[in-house]
């Protein structure tokens, strides 16, 4: 991604007419931008795919490949579809202008192009692009690739939809006493390694981490992308998390550091998944009874002295290769009826 320092950008001028090309290039350079030019659509696309540009000024009437064809190709190119295009043409007929806009052109300027108008439109387009780039960058950093893709494909809107999925809560047992026994730097380092391992296990089985709170993680399997065997995927992820923590402990033992243990709770069923928050700040999450149960199951691992606890719905979906032990009904805060709890052997298969 290019930095737009002082508003200066790299622009591509596409026009088959030499006078028009020179004139536009001159206007843009006087505005402080750097430019390149192409004399038809085919050459323009080659340049756009080979180099990085911030904006394209596109003529419509051109031999070989005209502007409409270029717009069509850009829309269908994942990498180039967000590139702003300002059409500069003296096309006759409002229908042609409408067609440009419908094909995704950001703006339309009639030739001969008024330099003041050109400057204003380019400024506005670049500012919009800058915001879009910033947003994408933020999304890349703070959202999972699945959520980022979902946002890019279907757009952002608050509100959710009903999905069938599995929710997993996990945390480190006795984390606060570990944190108290060592320096803050060591704690951050421990958390970073721990996160790296857990994220790997979770996303490796199709899960998405939706919440991180100190040592606690909430993940969902089956949203935003549906997952046919979400129960089994979640349980397998939990088993892998336990196995990775055991490997991690071997290392910690050598370094004479306190060992860590984790607890995992999984519950499955229907829940509402979507974006919650405000239009300014929102997060992808799941809401519902199931989420509450998963959280309580995770807390209950301390009482039950078992690392992985699941609910009845999750258990019913598991194949015979899992070693499952019924622990009977357990009263759960916020639920009138007790919930049947099962423990899953952390070792992979029976």
């Amino acid at each position: 991604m290019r930095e737009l320092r002082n508003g200066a950008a790299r622009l591509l001028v596409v026009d088959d007419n030499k006078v028009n090309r020179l004139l536009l290039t001159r206007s843009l350079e006087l505005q402080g931008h750097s430019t390149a030019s192409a004399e038809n659509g085919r050459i323009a696309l080659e340049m756009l795919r080979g180099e990085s540009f911030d904006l394209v000024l596109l003529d419509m009437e051109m031999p070989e490949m005209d502007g409409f064809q270029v717009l069509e190709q850009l829309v269908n190119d994942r990498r180039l579809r967000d590139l702003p295009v300002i059409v500069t043409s003296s096309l006759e007929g409002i229908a042609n202008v409408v067609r440009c806009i419908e094909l995704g052109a950001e703006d339309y300027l009639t030739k001969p192009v008024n330099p003041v108008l050109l400057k204003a439109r380019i400024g506005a387009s670049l500012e919009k692009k800058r915001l879009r780039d910033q947003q994408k960058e933020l999304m890349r950093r703070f959202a999972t690739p699945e959520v980022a893709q979902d946002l890019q494909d279907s757009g952002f809107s608050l509100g959710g939809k009903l999905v069938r999925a599995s929710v997993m809560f996990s945390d480190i047992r006795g984390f606060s006493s570990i944190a108290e026994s060592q320096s803050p730097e060591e704690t951050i380092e421990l958390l970073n390694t721990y996160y790296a391992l857990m994220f790997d296990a979770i996303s490796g089985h199709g899960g998405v981490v939706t919440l991180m709170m100190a040592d606690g993680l909430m993940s969902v399997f089956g949203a935003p992308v549906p997952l046919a065997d979400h129960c089994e995927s979640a349980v397998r992820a939990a088993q892998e998390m336990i196995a990775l923590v055991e490997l991690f402990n071997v290392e910690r033992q050598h370094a004479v550091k306190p060992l860590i243990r984790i607890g995992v709770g999984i519950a499955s069923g229907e829940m509402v998944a979507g974006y919650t928050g405000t239009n300014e700040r929102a997060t992808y999450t799941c809401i519902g009874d199931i989420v509450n149960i998963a959280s309580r199951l995770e807390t209950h691992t301390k009482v039950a002295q078992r690392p992985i606890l699941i609910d009845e719905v999750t258990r019913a979906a598991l194949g015979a290769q899992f070693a499952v032990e019924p622990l009977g009904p357990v009263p759960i805060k916020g639920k009138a009826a007790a919930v049947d709890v099962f423990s899953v052997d952390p070792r992979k298969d029976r």
Partner: protein
Amino acid sequence: MTTPTIDRATFDALRETTGAEFALELVDTFLEEAPSMLDDLRHALAANDADKFRRAAHSLKSNCNTFGALTMGAMARELELTHVSKAMEGGAQKLAALSDEYARVADALTDLRHA
């Protein structure tokens, strides 16, 4: 006298926004390119090539308007909007008229170079 060959306000604005030196280079470029665009028009008319005809007329129109050659620009626009098959009748006269107007534009632009 009707519309002047070159609209001075348009030409002066061009010179002011792009710089006098650049405006002169641009005039030279146009004087180099225009004859071949007129040739394209003639060939397209002879070959009944609608796309090429429309494109050449379109380019001429656009350039004429850049320099303030409004009369020639309007003539080119008329050709752009006429399908080549319909331009056949009287097309040759229209092209001849366009060439004559171009000769006046070229003279006027050459004068402006020294103004």
